[in-house]
């Protein structure tokens, strides 16, 4: 079933299901109301999100983004989320045991990532930030390759072309421009808007709410709009940029920014894997068909710390965390699956066992990862090594050898 987002004109006159403000309880003061009319909903009064599955596990319908999900798909989403959460908790534990120098947790963001990741076709290309473990999972990147980065073994030595999954990018927002350029390349390669579903391709760029303040992200919006590049900007608004709340980044709901750049923005419940899947799929399809960029804001929450070095108790309210626990993306799908007889205890136990197995593999794989050889630092600086660097590398080798050989 092919879905389409309508173009930027949707933001004009008439009711737009994406921009409807959740009705407050009637006691809104005049000025608050005026504020909301102009700027959209405030954080305490959350907007109506595209949602297909409520936190209670009830199926919702949406005029633009609804679709039928097969039992296999639903079970697949569940399995992915459970395994990716295990990857996350396992990596966190490995960091605590000193096996990783750092880990950037995704706890709570599983639905946003699996929904987006599973909406991708094989030929679609991902430009991730540093927390896209779930998307990497969907693109078949060995999770040990991710651990290797945080262990300090390498800086992302998978083949981005083979997996259609780019390098983890630490400078926030930088990769959004790479995504647009790559999409412009796809246009030139004639793999956009051909009408052949096996050929048409799109790019997705992941970034955070904090990154949305960066110049690069805004420049990426402009380039993508100007060249109608086949890009989906996928922002996980997890409410926090380390200790800085979303209010520090934006006075308006982020998805509304897209209108100012001339393409549609959608806010989706990032804890609802069905909705993130459906919305991302529609946005990707739009891009593949040559209709240009879309901004998807996945409204979610970082339940863990920013990274393992962060202490969120210094800046965030425990109440918030408790509130968001009730919206756990895995729990709600489990309720739905059980209630509809799509899974039973035995199946769930099987997934649990699979997660345990993954945990074992990661623990063993991580600990047995060899350190790179010291002279690996000299490799891959240039496609054509310079004489200067060759001399340094040889000097380094000789220096090392003088110790090893010197004793003999």
């Amino acid at each position, binding site marked *: 079933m092919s879905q389409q987002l309508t173009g930027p004109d949707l933001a004009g006159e008439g009711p737009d299901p994406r921009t409807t403000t959740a009705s407050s309880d009637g006691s809104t003061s005049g000025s608050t109301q005026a504020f909301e009319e102009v700027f959209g909903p405030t954080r305490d009064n959350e907007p109506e999100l595209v949602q297909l599955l409520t936190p209670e596990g009830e199926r919702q319908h949406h005029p633009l983004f609804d679709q039928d999900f097969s039992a296999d798909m639903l079970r697949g989403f569940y399995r992915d989320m459970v395994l990716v959460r295990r990857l996350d908790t396992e990596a966190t534990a490995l960091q605590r045991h000193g096996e990783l120098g750092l880990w950037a947790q995704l706890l709570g963001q599983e639905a946003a990532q699996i929904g987006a990741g599973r909406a991708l076709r094989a030929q679609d290309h991902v430009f991730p930030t540093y927390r896209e473990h779930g998307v990497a999972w969907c693109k078949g990147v060995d999770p040990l390759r991710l651990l290797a980065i945080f262990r300090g073994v390498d800086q992302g030595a998978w083949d981005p072309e083979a997996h259609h999954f780019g390098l983890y990018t630490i400078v926030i927002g930088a990769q959004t421009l790479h995504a647009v350029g790559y999409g412009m390349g796809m246009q*030139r390669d004639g793999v956009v808007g051909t009408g052949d579903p096996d050929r048409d391709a799109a790019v997705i760029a992941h970034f955070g709410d904090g990154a949305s303040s960066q110049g690069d992200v805004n420049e990426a919006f402009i380039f993508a709009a100007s060249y109608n590049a086949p890009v989906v900007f996928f922002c996980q608004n997890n409410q926090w940029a380390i200790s800085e709340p979303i209010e520090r980044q934006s006075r308006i709901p982020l998805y509304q920014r897209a209108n100012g750049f001339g393409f549609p923005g959608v806010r989706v419940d990032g804890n609802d894997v069905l909705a993130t899947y459906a919305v991302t799929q529609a946005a990707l399809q739009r891009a593949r068909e040559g209709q240009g960029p879309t901004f998807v804001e996945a409204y979610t929450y970082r339940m863990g710390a920013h990274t393992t070095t962060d202490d969120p108790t210094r800046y965030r309210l425990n109440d918030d965390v408790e509130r968001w626990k009730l919206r756990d993306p895995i729990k709600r799908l489990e309720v739905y699956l059980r209630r509809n007889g799509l899974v039973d205890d035995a199946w769930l136990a099987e997934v649990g066992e699979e997660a345990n197995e993954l945990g074992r593999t990661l623990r063993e794989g991580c600990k047995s990862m060899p350190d790179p050889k010291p002279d690996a630092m000299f490799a891959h600086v240039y496609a054509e090594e310079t004489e200067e660097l060759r001399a340094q590398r040889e000097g380094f080798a000789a220096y090392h050898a003088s110790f090893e050989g010197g004793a003999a």
Partner: protein
Amino acid sequence: MSEQLLERPAERVVERVTLAKALNAGLRRAMEADDKVLVMGEDVGKLGGVFRITDGLQKDFGEDRVIDSPLAESGIVGTAVGLALRGYRPVVEIQFDGFVYPAYDQIVCQVAKMRYRSGGNLTMPMVIRIPYGGGIGAVEHHSESPEAQFAHTPGLKVVTCSNPVDGYWMIQQAIASDDPVIFLEPKRQYHADKVDLDTSATPDPLFASRVVRSGSDATLVTYGPQVKVALAAAEAAAAEGRSLEVIDLRTLSPLDLGPVYDSVRRTGRAVVTHEAHVNLGMGAEIAARISEECFYSLEAPVLRVGGYDTPYPASRIEEEFLPDLDRVLDAVDRSFDH
């Protein structure tokens, strides 16, 4: 390295060209040789660039290959990264030296490191062209010499041409390179001199310096806009009976100092000159290396002549800032005073 881009036509065509014309012809040749070569930047299309280096390219190759970009330097370089990852060879024009800084992060953190981070899985065949240097009476941000900032960054290669013949070949060689190249064009030379360009000749390699005037008494080491100044200084010195050897470095990263060492071992004296600020500039590196390699041949310390450690001044006094023939000769005199 793309061999296809380096193929030379058999027929011999000789034209008298300026640096601007030579660069334009070089770009044109590269675009004809490989349809993956793209040109991007502000005003590079219809206008042909503010210096007209890309003149006529969009007319001949279309808007998909000569891309007028939004006015966003980080965006230009960052999207070029994506295009390079997709297998294209973007040649990016930064309008003026002083406007490269918004793109500095993309160049230093992304372009330079992409190959390294990926463990060799990715290549970054990109050229970033920057008209640089002063002497054109411009307002601020239009006369800077940021070469050391890029030469200090592993993963980048930095070259600069000083004449039309080099301009023609070096731009093609830079495009053919699989490494990212910062390509510095001395803007005051763009329209200065016309020379004969033989398009069937065999060019020097890209990453090689060259002795442009032989001499026996002292060595002048320079590059880009200062080559002309150094040659004039050597001419004047010759009239007074002093023989100066002039070396055009051409490549700043990697540095090709072999010819410099050979020269200094013969002459025993070296003066390094450039327009950029002296403090921590290219001259500091070159002087240090000459001291390391040629210590016992040196009759005097290696001296540096360059821009003062001030921001580039208002243009009415830029001639005071820019090292000229007299300041170069003064340094040579000081070398002989030792």
